[in-house]
């Protein structure tokens, strides 16, 4: 099977099924089905990825850093035993990222390649794609040859590589680099992106050694803002988040799945050594954890149509290359809904539908006119001191302009945390559109489509939250709560009298999605 660069777009995947191979009747039927659905089989947009690191080469790689504990070494070394493919049954995982090349000696690399080749063959028979993980130090030409021989569906580059490395893999190679700089990729047209993320977590500031005030909120690490930051157009594309879970944190695995999935991304599932060893031994506890991961993955894939909903927000955030991602992160943490707008696409028409705009960068004359017109018609512009007349003492000053106003910050650039916090005061609830109560350790994400609104919530604390109240602009007749753990639940809705709808979620365990119609 020829390999090709992802940038050229996915091509049809032709099953090289040799009837002489030892395919069971079960998988022959499956392979037949695949051959009838080549586009589906080869569509990276349908891939649900899992980092499936293993084999002797993986042990060699990890020997350079932290070696696995003794009880896990056998599991890592023998991870490509065919039996481990059985773990994927009943899960949506259909794409395995296997250890392929680390730049070790030729013999060790060859041994691993042969191991992966056989494993990939068996995986392919189950309809599972296999991508080889390549680490810095690998020989690209050798990797390309081995990948073709193993009939891998592509390669994943994990680490910092010299310039031109991907090109040396061959013009036909499907290459997915795990990027570390999101901002530079935001305008990329690449149909699938893999990004280094953070471990989702909620922590007390005091536990982080940060002294704060009495009303300090927990600090939340989340990738929701990161995934949605790539949603600049109306079309969805897969965004993969690469990060390692914290196994000691209760509920961490399912949180990792949900954290990437809420805004339409996918977590590159990674299991820690303890879980791996337990799965290898088929320990009850490990299998239970694995099933919970599968439940959350299934929930995400069962509701794949939600990815087509558009992000909701009456606040527009103007992005350019210099824009700090921290504004996006902290606005999301403060439950401020927003939509992104590229600076290069700033026009009067593109601002219609917004009621407020965050425009931090110094505007050109033309941009200033567009923003002034927006404010004069009733909008709010939030700007830095370059706008002019910044306050001397106060953090920001609101300047009336026509029917609207401009909030000019004193600090250059304005502190992202302050801006995010001040949005709660600058934006009336009706402008915010979405108000959520009792979510200090949760993050919400609202999207809309087909006259429906979807409010997703993810609880980052290890304990459920009781009584989450939501208010949303508009009149809705029904609200249904979807969670991975339980059947869907109809919630009572109440009109608040000012054109908004209110509902109550009795308990939020981890991931919840409320569909308003």
């Amino acid at each position: 099977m020829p390999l090709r660069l992802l940038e050229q777009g996915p091509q049809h995947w032709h099953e090289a099924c040799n009837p002489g191979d030892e395919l069971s009747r079960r998988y022959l039927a499956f392979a037949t089905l695949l051959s009838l659905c080549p586009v589906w089989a080869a569509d990276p947009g349908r891939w649900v990825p899992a980092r499936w690191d293993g084999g002797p080469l993986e042990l060699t790689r990890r020997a350079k850093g932290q070696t696995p504990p003794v009880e896990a070494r056998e599991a890592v070394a023998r991870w490509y035993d065919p039996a481990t493919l059985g773990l994927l049954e009943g899960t949506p995982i259909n794409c395995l990222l296997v250890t392929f090349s680390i730049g070790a000696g030729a013999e060790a690399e060859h041994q691993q390649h042969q191991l992966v080749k056989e494993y990939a063959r068996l995986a392919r028979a189950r309809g599972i794609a296999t991508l080889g993980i390549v680490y810095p130090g690998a020989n690209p030409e050798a990797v390309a040859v081995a990948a073709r021989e193993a009939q891998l569906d592509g390669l994943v580059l994990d680490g910092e590589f010299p310039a031109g490395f991907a090109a040396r893999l061959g013009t036909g190679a499907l290459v997915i680099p795990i990027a570390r700089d999101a901002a530079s990729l935001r305008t990329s047209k690449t149909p699938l992106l893999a990004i280094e993320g953070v471990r989702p977590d909620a922590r007390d500031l005091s536990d982080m050694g940060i002294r704060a005030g009495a009303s300090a909120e927990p600090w939340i690490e989340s990738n929701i803002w990161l995934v949605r930051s790539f949603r600049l157009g109306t079309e969805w594309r897969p965004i993969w988040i690469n990060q390692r879970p914290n196994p000691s944190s209760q509920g961490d695995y399912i949180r990792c799945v949900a954290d990437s999935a809420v805004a339409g991304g996918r977590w590159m599932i990674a299991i820690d050594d303890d879980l791996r060893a337990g799965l290898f031994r088929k320990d009850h506890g490990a299998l239970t954890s694995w099933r919970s991961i599968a439940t959350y993955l299934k929930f995400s894939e069962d509701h794949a149509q939600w990815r087509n909903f558009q992000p909701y927000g009456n606040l527009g955030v103007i992005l350019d290359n210099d824009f700090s991602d921290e504004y996006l992160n902290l606005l999301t943490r403060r439950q401020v809904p927003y939509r992104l707008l590229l600076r290069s696409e700033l026009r009067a028409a593109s601002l219609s539908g917004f009621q407020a705009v965050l425009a931090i960068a110094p505007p050109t004359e033309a941009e200033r006119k567009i923003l002034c017109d927006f404010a004069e018609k009733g909008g709010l512009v939030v700007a830095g001191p370059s706008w002019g007349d910044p306050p001397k003492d106060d953090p920001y000053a609101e300047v009336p302009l026509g029917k609207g106003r401009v909030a000019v910050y004193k600090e250059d650039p304005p502190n992202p945390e302050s801006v995010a916090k001040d949005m709660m005061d600058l934006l009336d609830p009706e402008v915010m559109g979405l108000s959520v109560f009792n979510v200090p350790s949760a993050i919400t994400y609202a999207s809309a489509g087909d006259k429906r609104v979807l409010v997703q919530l993810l609880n980052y604390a290890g304990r459920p939250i009781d009584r989450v109240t939501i208010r949303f602009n508009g009149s809705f007749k029904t609200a249904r709560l979807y969670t991975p753990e339980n059947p869907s639940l109809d919630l009572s809705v109440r009109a608040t009298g000012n054109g908004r709808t209110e509902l109550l979620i009795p308990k939020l365990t981890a991931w919840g999605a409320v569909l308003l119609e």
Partner: protein
Amino acid sequence: MEDVRNAFSRRDLLALSGLAAGALAVKRAAADVAAPTAPVSVAKVASYDLDLVAQIEQMFDQIGGIGNQVRGKTVAMKVNLTGSSGRGRHVGLTAGQTSWVHPNVVGALTAVFAKLGAKRVRILESTFRKKYGTPLEDTLLNDGWDVNAIKNAASIVEFEDTNGLGSAQQYSTLKVKSRQPFIFPAFSLNHSYEDCDFFVSVAKMKNHEELGVTLSMKNLFGITPELLYGLGPKPPGASQWVRERVFHYGQVQPPAGVPQELDPTSNRYEGWRMPRLLTDICGARPIDLAIIDGIEAIIGGEGAGMPGTKHGKPGLLVVGRNCVSTDAVAMATMGYNPRAGRNEPPFRLFKASHEHPPDQLIPPGETHQYADNTAMMGEAAGLGTADLSKIDLRGVPIKDAVYDYEAHWKGQAPV
């Protein structure tokens, strides 16, 4: 800054003497009028899910009953919602389990007042927001309170954010009626603090970074409306926080038309000013009933952002008609000496250096940060006695109720 001793006025010398380590003696005024007191009830309550209505009714009976005071009347409850956003808390815990009074306590109190015949129950707090106008109920929703359940606990239940005018057209000016105002002669407050017949301070049993402890008296600091006191000019270098620059540090005088400080040259040190200021506030708005929620609480500070704070379960409820006596008893159940001085726990302080002006960190004449004992200030002003030997204690004896806050804070409490 002037020597703290020189900053003592005659009224302070009448009230205080003996700053020797480990003791803070109180001298009575020349008239030697015994400080008032009233019974205080202590209960051990293991959980908020117990029948708090029955518990509170029992405690009210123990302190002599309050039915005559609330029947047909408007009862105002000033609750403690530190920070007021509702978002400040430890991961996995509610604000009611840490820095706020718990909704079950407020709901039970509302129900009990209703059973006793109160005509109206008003729930009050000054929320800490730049933008005024958000209903107080929304603040409560931020901690998952069942606001409708509280509304249904009595025939008329109202909520008001007292950080501004609220539903009135003007502020009410209440004069300090204690024996000797220390800092202010009067305060301009939201009308709700005047338009009530029976005033309840519902506090959380906590440590406090700047005052050592925060109980029923300190709870009243929140009745001062920031929107009014913040109207005064703000000179360069003054704290951006209204309450600090006007009250804590005295950097700015209140705006014109609002009662001014008695002596703008008096000591500006926060640990000196605030206990006296709180005493003045309690003198202006006397507390008819003090409730202190220590069933679950944050230990080591008043809010979630202080390093080293922990969630604790003291399992205590303290109720009394006299705020000074009630606070004194509460302090004792926290393991503190109610008559402790500025050199002893909990009044020996460790404030964040980056959050306080340099001159607030080590006051002249001292070697460390401190706060004077608010309950002792209250005693000196004639509001009540902080002498346990003179307080009629009901319910659980203090020795059986002690939950040592200091030991739990430092991780030294017995397991």
